[in-house]
């Protein structure tokens, strides 16, 4: 697993994150009416927030570059990737293929997120989850999704 701990200090990356968010927000806020203190437009308050965020982000970047700080925690991409992938799959499938298939695919993908899972246990868990969710969510709580395709 690749680690960026050697390269980065968490202040720097936190600052970078804030600056990126602030800049994206500012680009959008440009299209809003700002107004004046007396007559604040929709953009007034967000503009203030985004500017503060930008300022704080810049301070953190400077701090990160100039001082020795805590380094970024080790990134484990395997659980992150498979868990996120399993959610995307669930989102794509639930309305098209029904709840049962969406759940089975989600369990199948998130199975890879951990190294400790066994196929048998995951398969049984997935099957039970599909049945239980169909009963609880579709039959009892009446979520408008079809169980099967």
């Amino acid at each position, binding site marked *: 697993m690749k680690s960026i701990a050697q390269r980065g200090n968490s202040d720097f990356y936190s600052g970078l994150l804030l600056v990126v968010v602030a800049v994206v*927000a500012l680009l959008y806020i440009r299209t809003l009416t700002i107004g004046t203190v007396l007559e604040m437009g929709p953009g007034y308050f967000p503009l203030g927030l985004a500017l503060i965020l930008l300022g704080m*982000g810049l301070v953190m970047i400077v701090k990160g570059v100039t001082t020795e700080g805590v380094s970024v925690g*080790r990134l484990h991409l395997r659980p992150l990737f498979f868990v*996120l992938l399993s959610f995307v799959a669930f*989102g794509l499938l639930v309305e098209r293929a029904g709840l049962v298939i969406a759940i089975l695919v989600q369990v199948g993908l*998130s199975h890879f997120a951990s190294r400790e899972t066994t196929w048998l*246990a995951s398969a049984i868990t997935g099957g039970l*989850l599909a049945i239980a969710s169909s009963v609880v969510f579709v039959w009892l709580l009446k979520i408008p999704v079809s169980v099967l395709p």
Partner: protein
Amino acid sequence: MMDIFAGLGHGFSIAATPLNLLFCLVGAVCGTLIGVLPGLGPVATISLLLPATYALDPIGAIIMLAGIYYGAQYGGSTTAILVNIPGESTSVVTAIDGYKMAQQGRAGEALAIAAIGSFIAGCFGTVVIALLGPPLALMTQKFASPDYFSLMVLGLVSAVVLANGSAFRAVAMIFLGLLLGMVGMDINTGEARMTFGLIELSDGINFVALVMGLFGVAEVISNLENVSTRIVNHSKINSIWPSFKVLRGAWGAVTRGTLLGTLFGILPGGGATIASFSSYALEKRVSKTPERFGNGAIEGVAGPESANNAAAQTSFVPLLTMGIPTSATMALLVGALTLHGIAPGPTIISRQPDLFWGLIASMFLGNAMLVIINLPMIGIWVRLLNVPYRILYLVILVVCAIGVFSVNNSSFDIYMTVGFTALGYILRKLDAEPAPLLMGFVLGPMVEENFRRSLITSHGDPMVFLQRPISLTLLLLSAALLISIVMPSISKRRGEVFQE
């Protein structure tokens, strides 16, 4: 005084309906469950169950969600004592002496004292809510918008105090949350803001998707990174009935812990975790034989366990009387109330007496249920520890996905969850806690509304926040709180508390 008895009577008539009793029980059982299981906290669980409460009526939903929170305080002590794994951060100090007691064959004693102390503290905390609630709400009703704005500033500052790690970063997280809270319709003009043209965002970012991503799923991923520890065996429990001598020894600690916790729960920046740490420190200081601490002192279990329960209970005071959440869990409950169409604020008691008194009455009933759930049935909970995480996490993920989907029956919210999970994961790696972000997000729209209204009434003069005595007091309090964190001596001690 009569009003309180009338209110409580009314509350019991609501809380004791079969359906609400059931919700209370479900909440208490779920709370115990997640308290026992390490790696699944109340914030994640409440966000997980939030969508399921849509179908319920608001009172039942809040009764259940509240039960999860205070129930977790009971459950957390069980594993701390028996296997030296605190199920919750609030039970970390309980493990020190509790586990030692268990090794000495006194597990039953420790568990019983923890449960009895929790029960006494929980009931006392609930009485305090009933006593303080109505007068505080009346006082808050006199607040004008500048006062509200300052009150929210105080609430946000308390999120900084609660956050672990750098205060500067916590403040940045608050601003990030406030900015995210701006997404959606502008209250005054109805214009869409920062929605990036997405129709799904016109009502704002879905609260459940945000919480589920930041706390639920991101937490699962963090847990998956660590190799799980299997609990091979745990200490035997012999008698759960403590002797008179033990009870007498614990009595003082329970009383002190209860009072300390009650106070910490109400104060902004307090909360159950800090209450339990402070109680442990206090017990060690007042004890004539401090050397017993760390070697199985009953006071080291009785004090912190009482303190965390009292604080869990009284942290409802700012929420119910002023509509201000003082912790991430309370912010979740604000979200829950809003989703059910109830605006949290000082009018809750007068406009929703059923909710306020029903919730209080349910807390008495819930605490009583918890003693029964925890003491005689302790064996069942301990066995739950044997459910391996490699199965548990699959269940959590599927429930998360269905839960998020069911809010609006839209896959868009699931993709939002994916985004917030990634954000939550990155923030954890950067040592930035997502809790202050959540507080900012929840309070964002209210902060803006009161800010704008204040400046309209003052004709654009920002001094209005300093001219009104209430507002000035609240701002001074916030400043004092903020300075106290930044001060090196105190921040060092705070660091030690979190490190232990």
